[in-house]
């Protein structure tokens, strides 16, 4: 199932349960899979046209009235285009606004460079008090949404739009603010997020065949980051690889480095977009272009293992 279908189904459930939840789209309700909610919630699901700045502030105003607004658009328009509205009217004003950004990083595919946000996490992570969450798959998104509704404050949901391979099953259970260990290991720590978790698991098969036992931890909430999980794992393995679908400046790598440089510096390497703009292409091509394939992860893991203090 596509992630947008899960998003729509879960939002529908939550909106039926909680009459304070509202949904605001800015002319992308169809691509984001949310158009159907407009006929189900005539007053509370609205499309306000192509006006993202307005959308963020409409949401802030509705939040000040006790409502829980979700706003939805593509990642670049949900973040870099409206970061002042998010910073001032939503975050600084302490409003309860939830921001859904879809098509993160290379997943924007044929929408190309203009629509391919490599910096959205960095943009929002540098604004105080904003929670940044990136689901790995449908099951994780499903389990996260009720937690996001229960949490008061601005949350950015960096969602994939289309079909995505399952990493977790329906029984998956996790705390929004705690990293999720997928696999124990002792040779190196791999911290990964979003759609790159699946790629990391593919890489892990090859690492295993080479006798390398990696510890794999999913950082679904990049801010506030689970410092304890990162430090504990780094202490155990002594070497770290981060894997993300984002510029390696400002995203997961930066967040992990900020923790480790203060608490427990170890050799670290990163897979991600190496400070480049996006381009059109399908995912396999883009993964190759930006060195984000499983084989790139394996090579980078071997590289960082060589730096391990013996």
């Amino acid at each position: 199932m596509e992630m947008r279908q899960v998003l729509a189904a879960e939002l529908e459930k939550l909106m039926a349960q909680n009459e304070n939840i509202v949904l605001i789209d800015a002319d992308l309700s169809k691509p984001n899979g949310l158009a159907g909610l407009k006929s189900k919630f005539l007053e509370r699901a609205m499309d306000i046209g192509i006006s993202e700045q307005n959308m963020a502030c409409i949401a802030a105003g509705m939040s000040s009235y006790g409502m829980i607004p979700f706003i939805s658009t593509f990642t670049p328009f949900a973040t870099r285009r409206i970061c002042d509205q998010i910073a001032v009217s939503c975050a600084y004003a302490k409003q309860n606004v939830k921001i859904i950004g879809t098509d993160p990083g290379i997943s924007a595919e044929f929408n190309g460079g203009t629509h391919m946000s490599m910096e959205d996490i960095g943009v929002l992570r540098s604004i105080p008090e904003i929670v940044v969450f990136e689901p790995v798959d449908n099951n994780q998104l499903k389990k996260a949404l009720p937690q996001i509704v229960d949490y008061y404050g601005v949350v950015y949901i960096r969602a994939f739009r289309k079909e995505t391979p399952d990493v977790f099953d329906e029984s998956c259970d996790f705390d929004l603010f705690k990293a999720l260990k997928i696999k124990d290991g002792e040779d190196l720590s791999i911290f990964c997020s979003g759609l790159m978790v699946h790629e990391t698991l593919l890489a892990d098969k090859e690492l295993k065949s080479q006798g390398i036992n990696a510890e794999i931890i999913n950082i679904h909430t990049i801010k506030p980051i689970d410092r304890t999980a990162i430090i504990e794992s780094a202490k155990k393995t002594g070497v770290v690889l981060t894997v993300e679908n984002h510029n390696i400046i400002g995203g997961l790598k930066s967040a992990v480095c900020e923790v480790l440089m203060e608490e427990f510096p170890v050799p670290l390497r990163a897979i991600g977009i190496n400070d480049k703009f996006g381009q059109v292409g399908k995912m396999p091509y883009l993964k190759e272009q930006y060195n984000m394939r499983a084989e790139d992860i394996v090579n980078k893991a071997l590289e960082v293992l060589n730096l391990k203090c013996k």
Partner: protein
Amino acid sequence: MDFAQKCNKIRQMILKTIGNLGVGHIGGSLSIVELLVVLYDKYMNVNPKDPNMVGRDRLIVSKGHSGPAVYSILCSKGYFPEDWLLTLNKPGTNLPSHCDMNKTPGVDMTTGSLGQGFSCAMGVAKASKIKNDGATIYTIIGDGESQEGQIWEAAMFASQQKLDNVIAFTDYNKMQLDGPIEEICNITPLDDKWRAFGWNVIVVKDGNNCEEIDAAITLAKFSEKPSMIILNTIKGKGISFAEKAGAGNHSMQITPEMMAQGLAELRGEA
């Protein structure tokens, strides 16, 4: 106390608030005094003892730099003690330059980044419609602020959503920080613009006249569209040194001597 006496009192409070600090946004504070007095004396359904009262009317001052005027009217209504006014922009104050809903009782939205408060007000108005609580949402924008594209996004939204519970005001004092608006980025014809965006437009010839403002709000209450009341005001109105400074009064230094002179003028002693 009649409208004129109340306005005089609020002007004195604004001058003391800014004068005590020595610098502040006096021009755009003085230009909206009459509007604030009419709103809080006659129209706003609010309760200073319960600033977060459910279903209350709201005022969102999108030109958030008019904080000193907002604080003076709120203080005069009993939202907080008068000695707070002497803390403007001092460390730990509840009264920052720009309005902050999490710091000041009675402030309904955090504003200051221009254009945003107006959008927020439309969100508040939409929420009030959903809750069907009958509140009126008042909001004030600056004329310079009308250069922000976001104002017009929100204007279309209000029209589309039929937000007849919105009564907005433009403080049309013809000045912005850098100089006269018509020399920087002209916004005329302002009334036609709002009409074209589907709003009920009322132009108040003297926006520093309480009776004219009162009549305009009464008229707006009958509108089936969101209303924009354009107030032709004077930036720095009521204190001679501020009026004379023109665009220079957006944020200006005020010495103890200037404060004394201004207060004497307002008290009719000069």
